[in-house]
């Protein structure tokens, strides 16, 4: 697949403060790249540089092979950008605002009207089309931001926290929209809602203190965790000690931890060695040694834990 967005050692300094520190990455057509990171990590700054709102201190950003600095107007015409909080001209009605955007994007008259109609129905803005933006709810405002970003059907879409502050239904709708468009575009989405990454992103990068800390699919990211793919066994109190000692001997198990759950049951987590398949071994131990258990399940680990591990716990980064 062709590379649509390419960042090469992109950096941004605000005085002595280094907001973005040498980020390099590529986004191909068909990819939905999730930008993860704590608040203030440099996600928005990076997006703003790609969108041409900020000038990079060093490094380059290319969109469809064109340098943002050298050909800003061309690059901006290739991007649909929704800024954080989707600021739009609040004194305008939704229709007037979209008409303005269409005109600037080179659409006017009949084709503009048709396209606005299309986008409005896709984004479900019909109900508020003639209301002024300032009276709209947060969810609708966000949708107006989304509508202006996709109005010209850009090959590259950059969305800064598109689901921030939306209710679960609205979030679901935005994710569906992103999924629908994903195949023909390169999409970059920033978020700190980790479930979103698993829901819509084909790949994710983790940014902390302006640096790229990890880059991969959500599976890749999860495999960083020692507890990734651990088998959890919930056992009855009488056989806890037996279970712990037996499970430790299963081939491929590197470590066993015992935790007391809030409901009183004991839960044993068996961490596999790198790449080891341990489920069969555990099954036979449970069967053959008469351990009485109520649940056995495999847990991939969660991205929250990955996030905390990579970005160092948060409190010092917040």
């Amino acid at each position, binding site marked *: 697949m062709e590379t649509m967005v390419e960042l090469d050692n992109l950096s941004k300094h*605000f005085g002595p403060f280094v907001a973005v520190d040498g980020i390099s990455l590529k986004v191909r057509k068909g990819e939905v790249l999730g930008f993860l990171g704590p608040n203030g990590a440099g996600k928005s700054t990076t997006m*703003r540089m790609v*969108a*041409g*709102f*900020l*000038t990079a201190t060093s490094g380059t950003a290319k969109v469809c092979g064109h340098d943002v600095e050298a050909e*800003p*107007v*061309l690059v*901006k*015409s290739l*991007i649909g*950008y929704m*800024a954080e*909080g989707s*600021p*739009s*001209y*609040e*004194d*305008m009605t939704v229709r*007037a605002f979209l008409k*303005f*955007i269409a*005109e*600037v*994007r*080179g659409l006017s008259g009949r084709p503009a009207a048709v396209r606005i109609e299309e986008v409005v129905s896709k984004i479900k803005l019909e109900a508020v089309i003639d209301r*002024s933006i300032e009276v709209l709810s947060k969810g609708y405002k966000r949708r107006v931001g989304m509508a*202006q970003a996709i109005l010209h059907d850009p090959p590259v879409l950059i969305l800064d926290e598109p689901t921030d502050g939306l209710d679960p239904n609205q979030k679901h709708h935005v994710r569906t929209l992103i999924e629908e468009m994903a195949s023909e575009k390169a999409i970059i989405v920033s978020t700190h809602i980790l479930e979103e990454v698993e829901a819509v992103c084909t790949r994710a990068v983790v940014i902390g203190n302006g640096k790229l800390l990890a880059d991969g699919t959500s599976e890749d990211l999860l495999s960083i965790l020692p507890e990734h793919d651990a088998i959890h066994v919930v056992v009855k109190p009488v056989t806890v000690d037996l279970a712990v000692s037996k499970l430790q001997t299963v081939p491929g198990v590197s470590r066993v931890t015992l935790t007391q759950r809030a409901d009183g049951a004991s839960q044993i987590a068996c961490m596999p060695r790198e790449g080891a398949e341990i489920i069969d071994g555990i099954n036979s131990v449970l069967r053959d040694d008469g351990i009485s258990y109520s649940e056995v399940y495999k847990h991939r680990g969660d991205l929250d834990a990955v996030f905390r591990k990579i970005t160092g716990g948060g409190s010092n980064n917040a």
Partner: protein
Amino acid sequence: MRNIWIIAKRELHGYFTTPMAFIFIAIFVALTGAFTFYIGRFFDRGQASLETFFSFHPWLYLLLVPAVAMRLWSEERKSGTIEQLLTLPITTADAVLGKFAAAWLFCGIALVSTVPIWITVSYLGDPDHGVITLSYVGSFLMAGAFLSIGSCMSALTRNQIIAFIASAAVCFVFTMSGLDLVLNFFRGWAPTFLVDVIAASSFLVRFESVTRGVMEFRDIVFFVSMMAFWLFATSVAVDAKKAA
């Protein structure tokens, strides 16, 4: 050019969706009238001319034009819409000129709203219509020069009050620079040519010669180059914030 007009249209639309535009125009018309008839003693003078009417324009602009200009960029920055604007496929110059054009057109509309006073004076006597036409053109140019200063000040801050005060102060310096009040401040230490430059860049002096009916080509050049300079400075300020 197309982009400039699209931006200007949106801006102008913004003026008229709030009562701001109508209030501004009403106050402008009321004040020009009040100054002309009461302070300027229009009837007592017994002359069919609008010289007194125009003579108050620089002072009115000093107060009112910064009020129009202050929102040009500060508001965009404050509300965050500047991010929307500058990520559209337009150049900084398009945005600067578009916004300026809208504000200037708006001042033009306010100026045209004072035409009844012209009609009044034509009814009462036989004024020199050529001089009045030229004075209107000169006043419009001067409003543009004031506006361009305001545009630049507005691009420097996200606070509209600061933008207003800063542009009123800079406009004041340019209005008064032909007078001893300002010149004496420079005479003590500045080289003579600089003092001459400052004296020559007085809006008041330029505009007075226009209202007396002697608009020279260099007066037009003066106001146009003022606008060019300050609008260029505006785009430098807007770009500088991107690189900051």
